[in-house]
């Protein structure tokens, strides 16, 4: 070892002192050299992490002045328009943060923009994991943690939105209370308990404040830490490529290269959030005015992540509302308020296990799928996006109606039709696109890529010259897995001793076989393809040879 790699003596002394006691050198060395695969889509989760850090920091700043109290006072602050108006202390202290605390307005806007970007980045991160199949064994637990983070983030956002006690937050809390009241039997009790009496009561802001700054952030933080520790332990997934296998990770070492990138990325995330907050007004509570139970306004929505629930409420018909023994069962509120989010989060949480049950695949996967190579999964993902997206759009149907001059009722009917047809159409189109891409992959593998060079043959024929793919491309194309299911294997209905398995004859066995057939039936096989064996490559060869290749 050359002398230049030695640290200065003073540092060595400190380093040795610590290492003699904690034996950190080995662990440190191992973790600093940890390899992180290099792809932009692997940074999406980091956006969520950084937004969360921004939320924590700005949130602490806001708590220094925010008063979570519903005690009514007469406003006497520096915002002239509302002087003399009775309002809650919560609203007045938010005005104080906006107009009297130095930088308070900016920090409040950063907090709000960061919240919107936080949940949005959770969604895109989750979609990336879903479409690449990165939730498969051994990462199911981390997927479940992710689903929990997503759900908690939504609730956290809703409660934060409700704290300033301005006009939209009061309306949001009212809708929340309405959904609670719709619960059969227990609804009114839960509502009375949470609000400490009738809506709005005098306790709700204080209670939501505790949930918003203490309980839910603590849970989120714990889950995020767990998410990262599991990621660290299991290592990151990677896209197929040369040298990348289920046992070998190829990428950038944590220190210094990846740490620099990730650190820089934090500052970029912060810059975009701060830039938005400096120039684009968000949630102008001073314009809305304080909430009073008689106030109601059109044109206000929840923040975007609650939009799909708002949309479900808006388009679900009231045809199924019942009265049982004199008690109303308002299904038009219950289904959108509980069943739809239940379906969404339940479906997300269950999918890794459903897929495992269908395919019977119990092996560990560290190389992810290209979405086209799992067409049914990709199709299901897109139909989920369509379902969510239609509900989300329906949540803003009044704004859409006004902006695009469409009749309000007509938008409701359009969304009702779309919510039923859209997911199916989305599934079908996506699956066809995936299979089309598979066919093109097969062709690229067989013929090489189109070079754009046109040649005229001695016979007068024009051809486009195909060139050989790089080794990397060939490797990626050839790595396409064939999706199979143990339910379809020849010996699926007999056990290892040749005795017929009674499970296979039962309903679930039949269902599993049917699903497995549906899941695996469409596939463009590449097993019979030899790379660069297609005839296009040989057009420039002599006539006789060309015939032979055909």
């Amino acid at each position, binding site marked *: 070892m050359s002398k230049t790699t030695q640290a200065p003596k003073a540092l060595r002394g400190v380093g040795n002192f610590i290492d003699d006691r904690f034996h950190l050198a080995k662990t440190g060395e191992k973790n600093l050299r940890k390899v992180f695969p290099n792809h932009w889509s692997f940074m999406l989760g980091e956006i969520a992490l950084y937004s969360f850090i921004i939320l924590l920091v700005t949130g602490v700043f806001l708590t220094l002045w925010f008063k979570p109290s519903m005690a009514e006072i007469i406003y006497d602050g520096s915002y002239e328009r509302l002087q003399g108006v009775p309002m809650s202390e919560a609203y007045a202290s938010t005005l104080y943060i906006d107009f009297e605390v130095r930088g308070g307005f900016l920090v409040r806007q950063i907090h709000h923009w960061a919240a919107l*970007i936080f949940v949005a980045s959770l969604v895109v991160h989750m979609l990336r994991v879903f479409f690449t199949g990165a939730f498969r064994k051994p990462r199911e637990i981390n997927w479940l943690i992710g689903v929990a983070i997503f759900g908690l983030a939504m609730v956290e956002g809703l409660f934060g939105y409700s704290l300033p006690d301005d006009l939209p937050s009061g309306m949001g809390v009212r809708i929340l209370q309405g959904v609670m009241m719709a619960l059969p039997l227990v609804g009114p009790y839960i509502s009375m308990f949470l609000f400490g009496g009738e809506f709005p009561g005098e306790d709700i802001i204080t209670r939501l404040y505790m949930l918003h700054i203490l309980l839910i952030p603590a849970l989120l933080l714990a889950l995020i830490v767990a998410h990262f520790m599991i990621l660290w332990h299991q290592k990151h997934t990677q896209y197929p490529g040369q040298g990348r296998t289920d046992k070998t990770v190829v990428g950038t070492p944590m220190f210094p290269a990846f740490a620099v990138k990730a650190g820089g990325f934090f500052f970029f995330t912060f810059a975009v959030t701060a830039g938005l907050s400096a120039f684009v*007004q968000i949630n102008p509570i001073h314009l809305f005015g304080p909430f009073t139970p008689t*106030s109601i306004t059109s044109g206000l929505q929840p923040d975007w992540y609650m939009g799909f629930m708002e949309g479900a409420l808006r388009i679900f018909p009231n045809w199924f509302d019942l009265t049982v023994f004199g008690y109303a069962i308002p299904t038009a509120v219950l289904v959108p308020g509980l069943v739809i989010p239940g379906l969404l989060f339940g479906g997300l949480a269950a999918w890794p296990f459903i897929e495992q049950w269908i395919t019977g695949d119990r092996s560990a996967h560290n190389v992810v799928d290209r979405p086209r190579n799992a067409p049914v999964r990709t199709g299901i993902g897109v139909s989920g996006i369509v379902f969510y997206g239609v509900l989300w759009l329906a949540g803003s149907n009044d704004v859409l109606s006004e902006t695009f001059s469409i009749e309000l009722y007509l938008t409701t009917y359009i969304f009702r039709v779309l919510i039923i047809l859209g997911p199916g159409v989305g599934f079908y189109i996506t699956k066809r696109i995936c299979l089309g891409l598979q066919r093109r992959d097969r062709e690229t593998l067989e013929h090489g890529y189109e070079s754009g060079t046109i040649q005229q043959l001695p016979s007068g024929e024009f051809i486009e010259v195909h060139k050989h793919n790089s080794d990397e491309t060939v490797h990626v194309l050839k790595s396409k897995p064939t999706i199979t299911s143990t339910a379809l294997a020849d010996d699926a209905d007999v056990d290892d001793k040749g005795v017929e398995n009674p499970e296979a004859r039962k309903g679930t066995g039949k269902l599993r076989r049917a699903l497995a057939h549906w899941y695996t039936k469409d596939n463009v096989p590449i097993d019979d393809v030899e790379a660069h064996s297609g005839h296009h490559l040989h057009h420039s060869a002599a006539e006789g040879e060309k015939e032979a290749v055909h």
Partner: protein
Amino acid sequence: MKWITARRRHPLAGYVVVILALALFGVGYAALAPTADQAQAQTLAADAPSQDDVNVLEGKEVFDQTCATCHNYDGSGTANGPDLRGVGPAAVDFQVSTGRMPSMDPDSQMPRKPMAMSEQDLQNLIAYYNAQIRTDDLGPDIPYDVPNSAPERSEFEDEEAYEAAVEEYQTEYEAYVEGAEDTDMGMRLYLTNCAHCHGWSGGGGALTDGRWAPEIHDASPREIYEAMVSGPGAMPMFSDGVIEPEEKQELIAYVKTLQAEPDAGGIFALERVGQVAEGFIAWVVGLALIIACAIWITAKQRAHD
């Protein structure tokens, strides 16, 4: 041509063509499209015009030419238009000064437009309406003490008279808006009675059956007042008995003050649309920029990476 030929297969060529085409259409449309005229009625806020200033006969001419087709010569209405005899001059002033009448299509809701006739014609029309058509003084009167829109230069012969009129108007407008002192009352009245259609900011909103509540930012205080007392279209009527004139002043002052309020949160206020616009920006600007950065910092791979 050679320059283009050399570059037309560049990977970015397609994007450049799309951007150029979009720019061409955008600029072309902006150049050719009809400019949206800001609707402005042009009355000077003043007392009721004296008898000497109006001409009932000319008002009859205006009525017979522009109103009688649908509302009949005696104002009793036809299948196309309602009976006007009991609606009151406030309704006439509101409908005509906001350009909603004369209507091109009686079956659909009329948007706000520039007034179709001159200010003098409107005064004559109202005088004729009061003299010949209105029955038993039914319907609300025009609130002449509430300021109307700012005067327009074209209504005046010389600059001096115009400036004097503007000054007079501004004094009157400020006196009216600042005469309201109870923000809480104005806010509660607005948020209880108006905001569920016109929106918290007065930006308008969607209604049922293909109707919409128009935005009220262009409306003068007098037009807002007249709309309340006459209840045009689907709007309910808020007579002076239901909301007293002083309360109306508080309400109108609240709307106008809120409208004039600067957007303290940033130069882009997103038209005060609220959460839908904010969510849209969070995705297509915020998250998109950050992801673009992720693509950027992971794109360059050095040999030893």
